[in-house]
């Protein structure tokens, strides 16, 4: 089943230059897809278009087979959760509890059910001790985990992360990544679309989409995508570490093409 299908999508902010230029792609349910590309390549714009925060004139977006229109907005948004980049600018509640409750209130969850849901999802992101904390006393990583709890509490089928770790320190990045992995393990049917600058993260996702100047220029499994060295070099995009290592080793006469990860590589080199 297709979680997401985008067909010939066009969008322009100023009417002159297309921020999203004829973009088409599909995402199967349960897959973890990374979207990478420079700032300004259209990644975030694409995310906002998918969730209907921006309206497009040309093209089609289908979420779990439902066409995105003004009428279907509300219903589609109930299936999709999005975490934005700035931890402060998506934290609405006065405390962690109130913030998680915000989404529940919007969706008319009965008052009697709210407390249990809040406790459950705060525990999932390991923020249970902080339920009464105010955002001013939380770190960026903690706030992002609360944001994740907030959207998970709505049981979405598709989660979009718009550079959710860009503004975090290494500890925060780690915490959020661990939370995401746990999320995936618990719910293998959950589809994740992650807009990121982290090349290593892209390496471990199921699929990688590379965007440049509003267009998708590469799309496929990480290994395939990163094999396109010329294209990636031309747009000045980084390569995964393992690929860089393999390359320099090749120059030294050591052929390690077929090894999948760093552990295998180390193993081979030490024999």
């Amino acid at each position, binding site marked *: 089943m297709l979680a997401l299908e985008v067909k010939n999508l066009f969008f322009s902010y100023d009417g002159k230059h297309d921020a999203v230029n004829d973009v088409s792609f599909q995402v199967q349910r349960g897959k973890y897809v990374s979207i990478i590309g*420079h*700032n*300004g390549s259209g990644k975030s714009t694409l995310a906002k278009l998918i969730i209907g925060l921006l309206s497009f004139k040309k093209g089609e977006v289908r979420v779990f087979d439902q066409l995105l229109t003004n009428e279907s907005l509300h219903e589609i948004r109930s299936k999709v959760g999005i975490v934005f*980049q700035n931890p402060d600018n998506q934290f609405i509640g006065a405390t962690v509890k109130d913030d998680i409750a915000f989404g529940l209130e919007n969706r008319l969850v009965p008052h009697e059910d709210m407390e249990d849901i809040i406790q459950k999802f705060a525990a999932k992101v390991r923020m249970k001790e902080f339920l009464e904390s105010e955002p001013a006393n939380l*770190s960026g990583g903690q706030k992002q985990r609360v944001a994740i709890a907030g959207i998970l509490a709505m049981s979405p089928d598709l989660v979009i992360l718009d550079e959710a770790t*860009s*503004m975090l*320190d*290494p*500890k925060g990045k780690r915490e959020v990544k661990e939370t995401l992995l746990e999320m995936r393990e618990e719910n293998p049917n959950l589809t994740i679309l992650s807009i990121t*600058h982290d*090349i*290593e993260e892209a390496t471990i996702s199921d699929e990688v989409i590379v965007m440049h100047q509003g267009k998708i220029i590469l799309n496929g499994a990480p290994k395939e995508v990163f094999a396109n060295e010329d294209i990636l070099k031309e747009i*000045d*995009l*980084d390569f995964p*570490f393992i690929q*860089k*290592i393999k390359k*320099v*080793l090749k*120059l*030294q*006469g*050591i052929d390690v093409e077929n090894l999948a990860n*760093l*552990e295998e590589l*180390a*193993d081979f*080199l*030490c024999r």
Partner: protein
Amino acid sequence: MPIKYTDVSFTYNDKTPFSYEALRGVNLEILDGSFTAIVGKTGCGKSTLIQQLNGLLIPSEGEVAVNQYVVSKNRKRRTKKIKELRKLVGIVFQFPEYQLFEETVEKDVAFGPKNFGLSNEEALKNAHDALRLVGLDDTFFKRSPFDLSGGERRRVAIAGILALKPSILVLDEPTAGLDPRGAREMMKLFKGLHDNGTTVILVTHDMNIVLEYSDTVIVMEDGEVREITTPLQLFNQENDLYSLETPLLYKFVKLLSDQGLKLNLNEIKDIESLGAAIAKARGNKK
């Protein structure tokens, strides 16, 4: 003259129920012309430390000496010319793009120099030079800063400090939130300045940058200076590295070392040298 911290302590909100000791007994020297990285977990006191350099904060105890200027609570020792110090030491804070406010890019960059007494023409000239230095050409000068992209705004903000021609440049997480290419270009800019004689002090979480650019590393933890060392020595330690992230390069080196392939760490600075070192070690094994 080196920058010198002597027994510096700093407490926020002293004598209130909210008092918090951010720095404790800091003693360190930063040499002229060095590229020093200051690292440590969030909350270790890095930001507090650098704010003493231009007198934004005054030590609760101890003193900071920068060239002939002294920042100290002691009125007799304290320099009267704090403003001059702020020209000598240029500090670029995190997410500096949030400080822009003028109508045009060139006016904003010229704002700093004008505050230090330069005439309008001189200030604008410095502004133009600084803007070109950060990679923004003449087409940007008369545009509104609020029309620019985030990355461009950041460069304008940095130009605003560079226009003061500081001999000591302090940068607090200058690459935070930038994409890898943007980060690379930014670091190239700072390296260029360093090569031209500017002392660069860089507060960062990115250990790859520390490894690639700095010659000295100051490690802080809980308000104290734990170590002053070189990147190589820092990353070659056996211990848990103060919960700092290990650069990928060194993670792999450790992986190899655990499996029996020991490399000469002094020879490894980047990917290419790593490849060469591996080949050499394997050759030696045979």
